[in-house]
């Protein structure tokens, strides 16, 4: 259906000059969108004396800023913290959100709707309302300034559960019945039979969770107090304050925080765009 739509649109818009103008404007707009990124990278390759030079391509590019920023190991530590937190939370969401979504989609039991509505209702509660109780809870239980403290609020999400439920509803019951007849237990049926059938949804969920946690700022800022446990965004923010007007160093730090997600995007572009579309439409 979508190729048909495309062909039609192609035919409809054969008016040449208009198309060329539209294309040019779109292209210029796109370049403007990435200008902040280009300047960030460009300045990170300039020495302190060249920062005021507006040229996008540095006259004498140098990696000295990167060497300086990385030399004391702080950024590596923050990088590791962010990666550990984002990966763990993503794995947890892929496991639990799928399991709960599957249970709510494929099992028939009293209280199912109640559980579903209860979970869904948590979408209405903003994080900002929960951070104060979370903070007090963490301080009582000794979770402040720990990896678990950063991670625990996001281990399961209603959004992910809802997304996975939507997709599991599209899995034919016959597949699951056949597996049941073969004597597989319910956990194995979910993990080995149902999960492989919804891989697009899993990748959408994984991408969203990873990105959200990699860029998360508010809660990590609150729960961490020692430098060693900062995540990359919080670490970068404190680093930038400390550098005050050394913009080439701040740009280098910002570039370091951005490079990982850009690399992920380069490799998984198609999955990411499709994942965002899937999550946006179904969620």
């Amino acid at each position, binding site marked *: 259906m979508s190729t048909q739509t495309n062909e039609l649109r192609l035919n409809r818009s054969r008016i040449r000059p208009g198309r060329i103008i539209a*294309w040019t404007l*779109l292209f210029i707009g796109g370049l403007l969108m990435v200008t902040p990124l280009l300047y960030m990278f460009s300045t990170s390759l300039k020495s302190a004396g060249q920062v005021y030079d507006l040229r996008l391509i540095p006259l004498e590019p140098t990696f000295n800023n990167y060497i300086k920023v990385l030399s004391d190991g702080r950024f590596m530590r923050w990088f590791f913290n962010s990666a550990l937190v984002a990966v763990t939370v993503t794995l947890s969401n892929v496991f639990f959100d799928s399991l709960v979504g599957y249970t709510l989609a494929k099992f028939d039991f009293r209280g199912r709707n109640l559980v579903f509505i*209860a979970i869904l209702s948590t979408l*209405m509660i903003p994080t*900002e309302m929960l951070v104060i109780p979370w903070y*007090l809870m963490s301080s009582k239980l000794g979770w402040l300034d720990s990896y678990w403290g950063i991670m625990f609020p996001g281990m399961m999400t209603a959004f992910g559960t809802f997304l996975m439920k939507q997709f599991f509803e599209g899995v034919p019951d016959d597949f699951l019945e056949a597996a049941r007849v073969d004597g597989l237990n319910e956990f194995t049926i979910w993990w080995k039979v149902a999960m492989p059938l919804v891989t697009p949804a899993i990748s959408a969920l994984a991408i969203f969770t990873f990105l959200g946690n990699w860029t998360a700022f508010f809660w990590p800022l609150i729960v961490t107090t020692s430098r060693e446990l900062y995540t*990359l965004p919080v670490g*970068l923010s404190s680093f930038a304050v400390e550098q005050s007007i050394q913009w080439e160093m*701040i740009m280098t730090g*910002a570039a370091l925080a951005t490079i990982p997600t850009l690399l992920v995007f380069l490799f998984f572009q198609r999955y990411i765009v499709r994942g965002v579309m899937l999550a946006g439409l179904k969620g």
Partner: protein
Amino acid sequence: MATTAQTSSQGATRKGRTGFKLSLHGRKVVWAWTFLALPIVFYCWIRFYPTLSAFWMSLTDWDLLRPANFVGLANYQKLFADPLFWKVFGNTFLYLIIGTPISLVLSFVIAYYLDRVRFMHGLIRALYFLPFLTTAAALAWVWRWFYQPIPIGVFNDILAMLGFPAQPFLRSTTQALPSILVTGIWAGLGFQIIIFMAGLRAIPSTYYEAARVDGLGDWAILTKITLPLLKPTTVFLVVFSSIGFLRIFDQVYNMTTNDPGGPLNSTKPLVLMIYQTAFSSFQMGYAAAQTVVLFTILLAVSLLQLWVMRKR
């Protein structure tokens, strides 16, 4: 991994204990509750209990030092009598009322034309989408640098080159909020464009064919077919983006670190006020009352969405 083993062994013992008397249906019910056990604990402990606790705290004078006393609605009275709150409320509303329409119109126009472009489609789409993948806290610093005075700031250098007077941007009580808002719009635009494009793709081509047979022009097709059929996507994005602007924090915090929410509170949104009340002055009860107000506003926006969707 440990949890996997735990869940399955828990299921096994329960099944063993009840034996083979259970019907297939009964066994499935046991499995269902086994799967849900840990998540139910999680949602009760990490979502529902803290929610109730926030409501309760908002009725106390808790400040971390002394035990909490019940003070009724005193925090709310104090809040609604506080000129800072109304300033902050106004700022938050400005972020919402300017940010949402601009970002929606921009993203729709871009998505509409991008959808028809074939030449280098993937590259152009990637250019628009990339900012969405960046860390808001990091890129806020890039924008902050752009807004610096001559000779550091890029914007002022460009203005000077074109012969315009330099602008204070983040140092002005009137320009700071729009300057931060531009950063916020920029950061969210890519996502909205992608969602609009998905919505456009989902419109069946038969509608367009029929319209062309009837001799409708591009404009008529846009207003009579595309926009009405796109309504669910638009409503979703209006709500999504409104909630985003009502909760703006990362950009404001990082672009005004020397005086968070400044100059003179002219950029301070509600979430930054909550953050400072709770984690700089440790007035937990008062901050909790502010979060309840935020919750009420967000709830109203979501209910409005449901209402609009139902009327369709």
